[in-house]
């Protein structure tokens, strides 16, 4: 076989065939479809992937071609990636919820000839932009629903492609092994487009070698086995999903589970109960918010019990999980009781009972949020990385969890802090290049081979890396004190009532903030106080809500005042935005990071009003809906002052 | 919140249920003889069930007041059956093990008797059915644990036939006569049918069967039929409210009450009281005793029990017919214990098995009865292993609008008629149940 001939498992197709040999009967992929978890074993998956590869080859897919993948997490879309790699091609997963126009750039940039899409909806998008993408030759669709009357010859049902591929495979049994054998570890395996906080996206080319290395370090680090279950629900185009659901699954040989639909992710999560879990902080945050909201409806007794045991967990839960000494016997007993009454059931309803390791990354996670999950016994850890570094630069080792650090460099990764505080990375996991962007490649990888991450951070005494902010975002207040907006924003965002915050202060004499309230949490809060409201804009401007948010802001100020480094960053004035920041309006990235510059520009009048001491400001904004329609939202925004505390400077 | 409350209620109820069932298990006390009492003080048959129970208990109290049975005090506990078989079985199960074990049980319901007949041999507890139960259980060889003391329905029906024959002037005069049997549609009411049909064959009279459904308040059609057929006599085999209803319907359809004869369960004060004058002339069988306000035992009860404020029921009812029935039933059981003590040790606790011997060897001669205060109330009773009835005497009494008074001499059930029927029926039962009848030798053990 190909794998044995080449002697090493250094490409994904080889890994796949090896699994089919070694653990052929074990489940590789599951998908909830038609009400049950349809399961494919590794050998079945290998067969399917070969068939897809053959089918693609028959259609003319060539070595070096890029295969775009667009759709929700579907088994055959994952398989298509591997099929492309079998043929020496490159998988280019794209964000499925992007509107057609947004896709044009990537399709053009990557010179896509073949695209595999999920369903009619995506097909329609492709048809819409096909004229703008002259290279686009073949569109393959997974779900034939509604496709009966699409007569275009360049449309192919994946079913037919697979069927054809199977015949081809049977007739040319040596074709695929040959193609696999031609594959090199240094071939580009996948191209992930970074959304980039500014400018056009760039295609990050990662080779088999880099991703396998990154996956291996993670697998070894956390002792992952082929028994793990993971729920694949994050966008396939995101590096995180690619690392966890694709690279690590293929390296360790564990099972990926695709949810039935977007509506059922929570249910599916509870059913599967993954042992290995990955989610951006926002997901954890939302979960916690719902937990708190749902608990507020509980009876007094139950609520008291919940809060009592949450206090216990806060006191000793994380320590017990880390196996640290020094937890008193009575606390251990209480925790055991709490585990029965609260933490265990809570993990169960959250779908986290079976989790051995959970990771979060993508944005800094609030320490309290982080602590919450650890204290109820979920081994949640942080990792640090980016698309360019296969999302695997630093990991938090078990039992060495610090809430404000992202852990130690992964095995085989060198991390250095530049003079300006920027984090530099070197190692196997670095990108090969930016696709067709040598300029950008040269800019980010220096002569010594270090990749400039753009993040500011430092190592603490234990060798743990702490990330403060984006390097370019770290600014200075007018008085020269350091200003790390993300740091402050994250503190704000930990409040269940605050969904999003944007802080300003660079080169200014004080820090001010935009706030987005959390519709669910605040709405619920308002209903319980009989405050009537009509939609987000109205709710946001209620004086009661301002009072609520003000108390949150002041709590953050108190917190900040304790720490000399950031004490000057206390928020003096804030306002609550009249609309939610939205990726559709380009205010957030698709991974829901704030586009600070864009926001500052868009809402310049508001910033102006904050700093000129106005009591309110009128604003009108264009809002774009998912389907492309637009409408205007206008409001007179109040601006509130928050109490700040005097800065306590330690005597030197 | 509402849901929680519901759950809490359900949970506490469940806890109470499971906890409660084990609570009232009293501990056996030494030197006590336990008499379980299955009663019905509520429901359709309460008017008749209550006086019986009061008489029964008063006699037990009297016995205790007299120092018990050779020093052994009587313990007793009531359980309400409501005349329902399943409740009766539950009561039996509940009481049979209490206070060192039941001495004997008196179900006061033919239905419960049938059910207990199946259970008693296993538990070795005698079932005393004084004046009711299954007639063939007189045969102690087959029905080892049933004691239809001093009267079965066959014997009762036989006496009634004898009585009307006498009135008519001889059995030969019965030929062509019509007798209607108005009966409670249950095993109880059906018991006399076999004998009546036997006698009808013998003497050539006609028996018309008129069943009345439980509880017996709807008899219009029955009495219309009687009006239509104009029977010479009506035998009434009712219980509870059915009795008074029958008499009222008889009045309404103009059937002469003088021609009506009730069994001994249809001839007590509650049956005629509210009919008053309308019941005048109505006859009923007296199971030896009638209303006995002047008996010595009644005086004792009034003095030693009611006089001390320990009477069970109202004073007026003491000495009435059903009260007496209960009292005598209790007396027979007490005497059974006394007899058993003679053999197994005076002043000792008697088990159910020993009790059976006592009941099988009862020998209450007139002297003993007189001494007990039953002079003029009863005739002697002598049982044996093969005869669990012990006495076949009965007489007839009549309601004069105010009270019951005897209107006939003593009769004795005709052994020649009864014995073959008993043997036949019990034989069939023995076959069915694969019981090997006891021989006289077995009885001596």
């Amino acid at each position: 076989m190909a794998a044995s001939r080449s002697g090493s498992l250094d490409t994904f197709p080889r890994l796949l065939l090896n699994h089919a040999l070694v653990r052929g009967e074990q489940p590789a992929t599951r998908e909830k479809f038609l009400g049950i978890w349809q399961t494919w074993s590794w050998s079945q998956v290998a067969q399917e992937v070969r068939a897809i590869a053959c089918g693609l080859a028959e259609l003319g897919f060539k070595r070096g071609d890029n295969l775009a993948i667009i759709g929700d997490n579907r088994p055959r879309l994952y398989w298509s990636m591997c099929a492309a790699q079998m043929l020496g091609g490159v998988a280019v997963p794209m964000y499925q919820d992007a509107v057609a126009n947004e896709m044009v750039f990537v399709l053009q940039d990557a010179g896509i000839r073949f695209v595999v899409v999920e369903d009619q909806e995506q097909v329609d998008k492709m048809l819409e932009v096909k004229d703008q993408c002259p290279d686009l030759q073949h569109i393959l669709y997974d779900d034939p629903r509604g496709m009966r009357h699409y007569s275009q010859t360049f449309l192919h049902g994946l079913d037919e492609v697979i069927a054809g591929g199977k015949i081809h495979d049977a007739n040319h049994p040596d074709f695929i092994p040959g193609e696999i054998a031609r594959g090199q570890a240094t071939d580009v395996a996948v191209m992930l487009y970074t959304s980039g906080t500014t400018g056009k996206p760039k295609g990050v080319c990662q080779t088999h070698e880099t991703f396998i290395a990154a996956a291996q370090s993670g697998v070894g680090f956390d002792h992952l086995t082929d028994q793990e279950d993971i729920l694949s629900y994050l966008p396939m185009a995101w590096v995180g999903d690619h690392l966890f659901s694709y690279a690590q699954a293929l390296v360790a040989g564990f099972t990926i589970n695709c949810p039935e639909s977007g509506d059922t992710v929570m249910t599916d999560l509870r059913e599967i109960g993954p042992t290995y879990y990955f989610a951006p902080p926002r997901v954890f945050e939302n979960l916690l918010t719902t937990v708190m909201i749902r608990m507020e409806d509980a009876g007094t007794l139950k609520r008291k019990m919940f809060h009592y045991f949450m206090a216990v967990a806060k006191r000793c839960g994380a320590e017990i999980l880390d196996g640290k000494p020094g937890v008193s016997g009575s606390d251990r007993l209480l925790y055991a009781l709490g585990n029965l009454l609260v933490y265990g059931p809570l993990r169960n309803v959250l779908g986290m009972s079976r989790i051995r390791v959970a990771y979060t990354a993508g944005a800094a996670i609030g320490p309290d949020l982080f602590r919450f999950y650890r204290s109820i016994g979920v081994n949640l850890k942080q990792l640090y990385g980016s698309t360019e570094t296969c999302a695997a630069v630093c990991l938090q080792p078990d039992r060495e969890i610090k809430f404000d650090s992202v852990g130690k460099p992964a095995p085989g990764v060198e991390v250095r802090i530049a003079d300006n505080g920027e984090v530099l990375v070197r190692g196997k996991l670095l990108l090969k290049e930016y696709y067709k962007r040598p300029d950008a490649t040269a800019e980010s990888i220096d002569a010594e081979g270090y990749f400039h991450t753009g993040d500011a951070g430092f190592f603490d005494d234990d060798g743990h890396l702490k990330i403060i902010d984006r390097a370019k975002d770290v600014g200075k207040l007018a008085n020269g004190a350091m200003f790390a907006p993300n740091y402050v924003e994250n503190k704000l965002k930990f409040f269940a009532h605050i969904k999003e915050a944007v802080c300003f202060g660079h080169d200014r004499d004080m820090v001010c903030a935009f706030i987005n309230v959390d519709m669910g949490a605040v709405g619920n809060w308002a209903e319980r106080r009989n405050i009537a409201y009509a939609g987000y804009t109205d709710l946001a401007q209620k004086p009661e809500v301002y009072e609520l948010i003000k108390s949150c802001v002041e709590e953050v100020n108190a917190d900040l005042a304790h720490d000399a480094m950031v004490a000057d960053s206390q928020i003096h004035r804030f306002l609550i935005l009249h609309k939610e920041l939205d990726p559709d309006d380009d205010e957030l990235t698709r991974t829901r990071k704030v586009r600070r510059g864009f926001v500052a520009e868009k809402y310049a009048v508001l910033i102006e009003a904050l700093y000129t001491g106005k009591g309110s400001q009128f604003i009108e904004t264009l809002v774009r809906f998912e389907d492309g329609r637009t409408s205007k939202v206008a409001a007179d925004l109040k601006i509130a002052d928050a109490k700040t505390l005097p800065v306590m400077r330690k005597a030197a | 919140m509402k849901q929680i409350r519901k759950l809490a209620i359900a949970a506490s109820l469940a806890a109470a249920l499971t906890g409660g069932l084990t609570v009232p298990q009293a501990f056996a006390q030494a030197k006590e003889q336990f008499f379980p009492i299955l009663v019905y003080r509520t429901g359709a048959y309460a008017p008749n069930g209550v006086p019986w129970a009061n008489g029964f208990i008063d006699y037990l109290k009297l016995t205790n007041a007299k120092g018990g049975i050779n020093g052994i005090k009587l313990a007793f506990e009531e359980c309400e059956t409501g005349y329902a078989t399943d409740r009766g079985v539950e009561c039996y199960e509940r009481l049979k093990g209490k206070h060192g074990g039941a001495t004997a049980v008196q179900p006061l319901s033919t239905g419960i008797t049938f059910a207990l007949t199946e259970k008693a041999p296993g538990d070795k507890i005698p079932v005393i059915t004084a004046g009711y139960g299954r007639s063939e259980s007189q045969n102690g060889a087959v029905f080892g644990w049933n004691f239809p003391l001093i009267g079965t329905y066959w014997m009762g029906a036989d006496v009634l036939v004898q009585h009307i024959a006498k009135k008519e002037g001889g059995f030969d005069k019965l030929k062509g006569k019509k007798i209607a049997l108005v009966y409670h549609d249950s095993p109880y009411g059906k018991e006399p049918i076999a004998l009546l049909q036997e006698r009808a064959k013998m003497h050539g009279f006609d028996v018309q069967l008129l069943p009345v459904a439980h509880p017996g308040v709807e008899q219009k059609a029955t009495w219309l039929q009687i009006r239509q057929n104009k029977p010479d006599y009506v035998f009434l085999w009712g219980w509870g409210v059915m009795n008074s209803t029958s008499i009222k319907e008889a009045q309404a359809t103009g059937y002469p009450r003088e021609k009506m004869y009730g069994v001994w369960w249809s001839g007590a004060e509650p049956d005629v009281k509210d009919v008053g004058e309308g019941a005048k002339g109505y006859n009923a069988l007296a199971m030896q005793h009638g209303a006995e306000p002047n008996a010595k035992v009644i005086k004792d009860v009034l003095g030693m029990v009611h006089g001390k404020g320990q009477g069970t029921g109202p004073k007026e009812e003491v000495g009435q017919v059903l009260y007496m029935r209960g009292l005598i039933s209790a007396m027979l059981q007490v005497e059974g214990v006394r007899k058993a003590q003679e053999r197994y040790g005076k002043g000792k606790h008697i088990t159910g098995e020993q009790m059976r011997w006592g009941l099988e060897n009862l020998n209450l001669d007139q002297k003993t009865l007189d001494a007990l205060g039953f002079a003029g109330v009863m005739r002697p009773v002598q049982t044996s292993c093969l005869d669990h009835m012990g006495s076949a005497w009965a007489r007839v009494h009549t309601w004069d609008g105010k009270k019951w008074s005897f209107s006939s001499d003593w009769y004795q059930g005709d052994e020649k008629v009864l014995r073959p029927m008993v043997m036949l029926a019990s034989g069939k039962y023995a076959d069915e149940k694969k019981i090997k009848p006891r021989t006289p030798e077995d009885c001596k053990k």
Partner: protein
Amino acid sequence: MSGRKIGDVILDLNNISLSFGGVKALQNISFNVMEHEVRAIIGPNGAGKSSMLNVINGVYHPQEGEIIFRGEHRRDMDTHQAAEQGIARTFQNIALFKGMSVLDNIMTGRNLRMKSNLFMQALWIGPARREELEHRQKVEEIIDFLEIQHIRKTPVGRLPYGLQKRVDLARALAMEPEVLLLDEPMAGMNVEEKQDMCRFILDVNDQFGTTIVLIEHDMGVVMDISDRVVVLDYGKKIGDGVPDEVRANPEVISAYLGASH
């Protein structure tokens, strides 16, 4: 998109008259339905539209007239027979089985195809179990088709109105009918739900070739999706033809369109 072929007449109603007591619900109505077409019945309230559907699937028995279904002439239909011959329907006031889950509701639609005997069912063995599982798969396909996966185990009583209508349709589809009668499938729905329902109806017609007879109030919808329209008013037929013809029919305009708009 016109991939489907309209076939021959599958259902022909001749001179149907129906009355309750003295009330004449339908008077001498005739029209036909062709295979694979979407046929709409419109008319003001009380025009006898629902009665018409009830006659077609045998809930009501007309006093006069003749029904010709697939060439077979009959006086009237009977519900069981109608179901066996492939006529399914949905109801105006949702007639779901309230005590059952969505899944079970749809499963009942398969009852005619389930043949195992009572004894086997009680023991859950052999054919009974196999049958149950096979039909479950069929039902799941319908659930997937109508995009109601997230509610499959919810008791129907707890569902919002729009979803209940969808389940009602699912149950009818589970019968794999040849003719599907829809009684105001979009009544009481919001715009989005209506759009979804339209899409489903057209998909059904298109994908399974099901002949559809529908009653609908929303004129826009009717004119958009139906091939031919018959108009009833007070139990009488006042118009019949393709949407444009009907729209132009003066009697229809005065009786219906004029009145309601």
